[in-house]
């Protein structure tokens, strides 16, 4: 059984219950605010909100950020099935999750991401769904990087035929020729710095501009490298 496809809330009710507090706040925000774009996902999405890049490129596009640090695919799935996207009518939803699914295979992670895409589609028939590729991590080569890379390859084939779902390649340019990732790009070898965020998310921004201002995006049929 693929655990990525079984929605699960993060339960810290014995502790300080922050995850549920954050989820409820997102529910409230989705009711109170108009948004053209909703970002939903994990640590990388959450951290993005606190960068200059967010203020400069994404805030002006009326974006909501529903990222939660450490979220796995099944947590995001739970949030979507528990109304986080029910009261918004965005034109684009950006989905980025998977790096924290350490116990899952690339196939399971990919299926989980597609499951989320299907869930979003059920709620929003016409929304564009943008899926940035998963990022490498760790200072040196490691099995997590391999896993992310395999997921990205699988996603390319799974997503290419889904209408109004766009994969954006954002994972190039981080692993240097010596195989290392610089802390100037990822200060803890996972989360992006301002410079790293710009490198990764400018392509997402460019696509959002296209999707928000034109009727249909120009389909780029050249395979991206």
């Amino acid at each position: 059984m693929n655990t990525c496809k079984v929605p699960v809330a993060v339960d810290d009710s014995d502790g300080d219950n922050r995850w549920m507090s954050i989820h409820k706040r997102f529910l409230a925000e989705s009711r109170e605010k108009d948004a053209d774009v909703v970002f939903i996902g994990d640590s990388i999405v959450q951290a993005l909100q606190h960068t200059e890049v967010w203020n400069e490129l994404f805030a002006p596009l009326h974006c909501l950020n529903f990222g939660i640090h450490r979220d796995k695919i099944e947590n995001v799935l739970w949030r979507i099935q528990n109304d986080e996207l029910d009261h918004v009518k965005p034109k684009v939803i950006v989905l980025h999750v998977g790096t924290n699914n350490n116990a899952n295979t690339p196939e399971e992670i990919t299926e989980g991401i597609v499951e989320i895409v299907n869930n979003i589609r059920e709620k929003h028939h016409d929304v564009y769904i943008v899926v940035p590729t998963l990022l490498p991590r760790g200072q040196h080569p490691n099995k997590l990087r391999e896993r992310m890379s395999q997921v990205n390859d699988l996603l390319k084939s799974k997503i290419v035929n889904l209408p109004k779902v766009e994969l954006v390649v954002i994972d190039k340019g981080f692993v240097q020729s010596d195989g290392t990732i610089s802390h100037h790009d990822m200060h803890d070898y996972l989360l992006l710095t301002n410079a790293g965020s710009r490198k990764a998310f400018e392509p997402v921004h460019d696509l959002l501009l296209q999707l928000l201002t034109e009727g249909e995006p120009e389909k780029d049929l050249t395979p991206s490298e």
Partner: protein
Amino acid sequence: MNPCVIPKLSEDHDGDERKLSMHKRFVQQAKTDESEILFIGDSIVEQLQFSNLWIEKISALHCVNFGIGGDRVENVLWRIQNGELDFNVKLKAVVLFVGTNNTDCTPHEIFEGILEIIKEIKHRLGSVFIILPTLLPRGQYPNTYRERNDHVNTFLIDKFSNEANADEVTDNVYVVEIHHNIVQNDQTISHHIMHDYLHLTNSAYTKIFGPVYDKLCELLHK
């Protein structure tokens, strides 16, 4: 046995050894940096370096940031025993802030662990100023983690701010009480102060860690 006093490298549950990489980077940095002030601790220290307060004020004091997200008391103890205090130059002050992640420990265990870190700092660095900001509350509503951190603060304040308890451990150690005015009258914490009810927003860093900066200036006559 108190886990907080047993030095331990942070475990690599993920499989990419990020924390070890950061530790090694810090050890290298200590050898070559000419900083006078070290900030060391957990994610709240780590994220401080991206705040306006750090960029506009703290960095001008020649500070270096050895914060690692997720770190527990025993992880910081391990790090300082394994090279992160081996600076090329003489450090004038260490700002120590860790404890909130020891959610399975008693307040007294956490307090003992912090004492152990302080003793280790003194042993290695001699007469350096040690600044201890009090642990922050967390969670949107009242909860056991808030109580734990509060309790630790009571121990810290009693030990270090009470002249009746002065001894060689308390020498040159200054507790800065930063945990006030965060919990509102209705006992909630606003996401405007802590965006995830644990980590500080940019403006909150200015308000809450400002007094730490002031204390550093006062002690170092800047």
